[in-house]
């Protein structure tokens, strides 16, 4: 499997499903960025298989993105087609086979729908070392708690920052340590 198309079509996802039954809940391998979706509980398992499988070793994690599917305006929210949720997007790259794959995970916006309690996803920092800081950034800006992360602290904002700035319902601070915000 060395061609750029090697993870497209039904062949590759069959390999995943054979190895990990029920782990792939959604897929689009014909897209520009071929993606598969997996449940949050099985994310670590899927990622470890993707990194160590003998067919296409996805040895590089390029980035982690959190997409906040939420419409703060109630008038517009009534018209949107999706339920509010957060999507984690992992971009993987195989340096040997030179193919990419995207893994998506859907999370609730808040754990148990209690505002302020962070949704949880398993950390992949033990699989790709680079995920350490990426997950800290996602935690800092989008408020996702990565269980099993070695050192989950804010990485960009000050340590005493309140809120998660890239959430759609984030409220701008009116002052920070006495400096007024507007």
């Amino acid at each position: 499997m060395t061609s750029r198309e090697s993870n497209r079509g039904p062949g590759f996802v069959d390999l995943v499903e054979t190895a990990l039954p029920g782990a792939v809940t959604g897929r689009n391998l014909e897209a520009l960025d071929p993606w598969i979706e997996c449940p949050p509980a099985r994310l670590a398992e899927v990622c470890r298989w993707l990194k160590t499988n003998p067919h296409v070793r996805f040895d590089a994690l390029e980035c982690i993105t959190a997409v906040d599917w939420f419409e703060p305006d109630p008038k517009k929210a009534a018209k949107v087609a999706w339920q509010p949720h957060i999507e984690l997007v992992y971009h993987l790259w195989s340096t040997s086979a030179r193919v990419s794959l995207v893994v998506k995970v859907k999370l609730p916006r808040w754990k148990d729908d209690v505002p302020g309690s962070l949704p949880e996803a398993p950390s992949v920092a033990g699989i790709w070392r680079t995920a350490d800081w990426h997950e800290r950034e996602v935690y800092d800006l989008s408020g996702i708690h990565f269980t099993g992360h070695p050192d989950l602290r804010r990485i960009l904002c000050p340590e005493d920052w309140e809120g998660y700035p890239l959430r759609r319902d984030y409220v701008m601070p009116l002052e920070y340590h006495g400096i007024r915000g507007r």
Partner: protein
Amino acid sequence: MTQSFNPSTPSGGRPWIEGRFEENMVLTTVEQAINWARQSSIWPMTFGLACCAIEMMAAGASRYDLDRFGAGAFRATPRQADLMIVAGTVTYKMASRVRRLYNLMPDPKYVIAMGACTTGGGPYFKWGYHVVKGVDLVVPVDVYVPGCPPRPESLLEGLMRIQDKILGQRIAKRPEGGKVDDELPVPHHSGYVTSAVGDGTLVFDHQKVQP
């Protein structure tokens, strides 16, 4: 010093200052002499926060040559600097550091707010959750240089306005506790500043934003 006719000098052969007074004498005041010396050796602090620092570096390099104004000695410590050029976006995380650096500078000290971000938040005014809406909420600013980023010529203009300000300084002793007429109010870090010369009431419109 003898007067000699030299037709090659630009002033038509007349010397510029020599011979206009009595022999070997130049008249000035101590105030003017000190201010002239000060304005000719402003030492800025090496201090760049974002993209404006690139223009500041260009202004310091050979093409625009900040050293023509005696301000080319960028010091790497606030203890030796007279001028703080706040070049770039000041975030809330950086604000306390900017203020500490300002407090470390010896008097007399001057601040240039360079660029749109430091004058009033710039492109981050509305949606920048992390940007201080003008560095004058943190340190007193003498000269604002607009632009995004300002051209090096603009920074040189700002520097010349600082020089004008220095030239206007009085060194005469003031009564104990007296303040300079044009002394800038130091922001209280509450974001609101009190007037230095008035009765200490809060000044709200120094940034044209009503509370």
